[in-house]
């Protein structure tokens, strides 16, 4: 599946963009990107949430990802 990145994130090719990942859950995405990109761990430390078909998941990495879903990595936000 294609995983798009918010323009606030950079892997190795400038801000934003997308990468191809084989994943069934959010955890699969995180593991795959951590293995492929040395600086992804730093992004995780800053906070990464995952939007699946427009629904934002901040914490539950067990969340399954439907086939053909729109997957977007965005900043993990907090609130007041």
């Amino acid at each position, binding site marked *: 599946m294609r995983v*798009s990145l*918010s*323009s*606030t994130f950079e892997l190795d090719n*400038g*801000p934003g963009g997308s990468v191809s990942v084989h994943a069934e859950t959010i955890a699969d995405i995180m593991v795959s990107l951590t293995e492929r990109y040395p600086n992804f761990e730093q992004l995780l430390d800053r906070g990464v949430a995952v*939007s699946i*078909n*427009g*629904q*934002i*998941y*901040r*914490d*539950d990495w067990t*969340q399954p990802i439907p086939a053909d879903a*729109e997957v*977007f990595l*965005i*900043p993990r*936000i*907090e*609130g*007041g």
Partner: protein
Amino acid sequence: MGHDQKYIDKKNYEVVGTRFNRPDGIDKVTGKARYGADASAPGQLVGRVLRSPHAHASIVKINVSKAEKLPGVKAIITSADLPDLTGQDQGLADILENCMARGRALYDGHAVAAVAAVDEQTAAKALKLIDVKYKKLPHVTDVDAAMCESAPVIHDRIITRGIEPKPTKPSNIAARTQMGHGDVEAGFAEADVVIEKSYKTEQTHQGYIEPHACLASVNPDGTAELWVTTQGHFVFRNVCASLLGLDIAKLKVTSSEIGGGFGGKTHVWVEPVALALSRKANRPVKLVMGRDEVFRATGPTSSTSIDVKMGAKKDGTITAAVAEMRYQGGAFPGNWAMLGCMTAFACYDIKNNESIGWDVVVNRPKVAAYRAPSAPMAAFAVESTIDELAKEIGMAPIDMRLKNVAREGTLAPYGPTYGPIGIEHTLKAVKDHPHMRAKLKKNQGRGVACGFWFNIGGQTCTDLNIGVDGTVNLTLGTVDVGGSRSSMAMIAAEELGIPYEQVRANIADTTSLGHNDMTEGSRGTFSSGMATVFAARDAIGVLKQRAAKMWGITEEDVIWENGQAIATGDSHGNLPPLSLKEIAAKAGRTGGPIAGHNEVVADGAGMGFASHICDVEVDPETGRSTIIRYTVVQDAGKAINPDYVEGQFQGGATQGIGWALNEEYIYGDDGCLQNPGFLDYRIPVCSDLPFIDTQILEVPNPLHPYGIRGVGETSIVPPLAAVGNAIANATGVRMSHAPMSPPRVLAAIDTLEHAS
């Protein structure tokens, strides 16, 4: 967590959706409720903090010898008593440095030392005997000035993130953020009208009535207790344990009743200091901030400077929008401008949009979240500009918003495509609202504005224990900041099929329940509501097992309906139902206590959208603006207790109106705060405002079993712009600087009159 269709289809809830008095209400109105300052312990000392009188200064030397010799002084600490145990965690290191200056005071009010003494007078005297030698450094408190090359650089370690090529020199710009989509230049070329304006918003404080307060007690064996007013005692426990080198399990944190937080009590400020004082004195230490300390040293929101450019066709279609936003985060880096970028255009479907954010540090206190952090300032700029666009093309502002409204399938400015969202519902409700047809008098104007906030979920843990008399204790870990104990009791009662009065909800201390994230991001009712549903269903499973044992039948032949177990099947048809009370009474003989439990990562918080209507009357001689009528329309998903939902709507609107009209931090040329008190920093009181009308919309969140969306924050987003738009319609002047205080409005009216 998938959506449970049975609850969406259910039209008649027994308990949910009704209105009950809050269980903590009587204690609060009679003065029995115990807040942060209401705890005491044998032998407790009084803690006081010495704060920097300078905006920026090197701390050359701190001499505490005279203070230490004062009879009654039991401990004095400086940063030397809080060694840096944060490793490579810069965020934690910033928290530590904010709690106690380390070599430099970074803002007026920054803590430099603290005292524990036998009484208030001795502690105050000791503070005066501490000799601090400062070397004043150049300071900067304005966000735009801090970005200039000539500005004094506050942190040598800050190299701007998000710029290519990476800068080689440090500056006060912590990060640049850019997001959006489409081709804005092509979009502006399509436009018939383009409006470009600059806006400023001043720094405001959450203004909670209860100052920060705690009672800390550290023992020589490494165990410790902390009683504290907080939005999240589990998070406070973890942060304090990390900063002080304590074991998490040995630090017991109990949350007091809370007299308001709104984001300001998501951070530790004095709690690690109180613990360090107690550790050094080997006695409990109570530390209560004064109001001036709250203003000078605890997290206000950012002040901002924002440029917006928007273009539209004559039919009202917005073809392009650009915003460049500068947010200051106080003396430590934050991501406040990034949040501005994510929210600025979130209510609209704009084909070509671009947001650029600059996160900047200045010599002011560390910024904290304030209800939908960063969104109100961005909305002030964008919603004001939309009204200017509508005026220019001769279209009603409400129609222009509806024409461009975001819907399911719209590309959000922060990247993904929206699922089901409720902004269009709120705008249509506003258009149909009688408020929009009410007649206005001379010097009165009406404004409409929209707002968005994400809402969040998070880690949550809940216990439900059934007593032998059939009453139920619901044990929660999310601090009750807005009536959630009552709402959770209602959900438990709904699930179990028993009266609300049969359930008592309590907030557990950190040793009695698993970790719960902070009550922030409008997550309390969403997250604990989800955990309560599942804990109750867990308990129902046990109740069915026990009923089966009492009857001597299999569990599969038992169902739970209306608060009782019912035996099903032809062979059990003559068995009378067993109520929860009857089953509970026999618990000791059927297997022991009956309980339910749940721990969950409550993801899937539904986004919050709101639209507000504001009528204002402006006195042309004084510039004073009076709110005549105000209406909040917001999507709640499902209102568990409508009273509390309305209260959140009204509270957020009130705080936003204060921000719009009066509230601001005023710094002198010396970089010191000039108005650290409620006399000079004026928040709205009841007599300032009309009753704020509310309309709750219920567009269910498909990822919550009851359809709940958070409601605590979004209502603070639209008021700045709604008030500004109303003033513009009342006076003909567009206010671009909030607060729109009488002197600013009067000056704008005078300028307009002179120009004409």
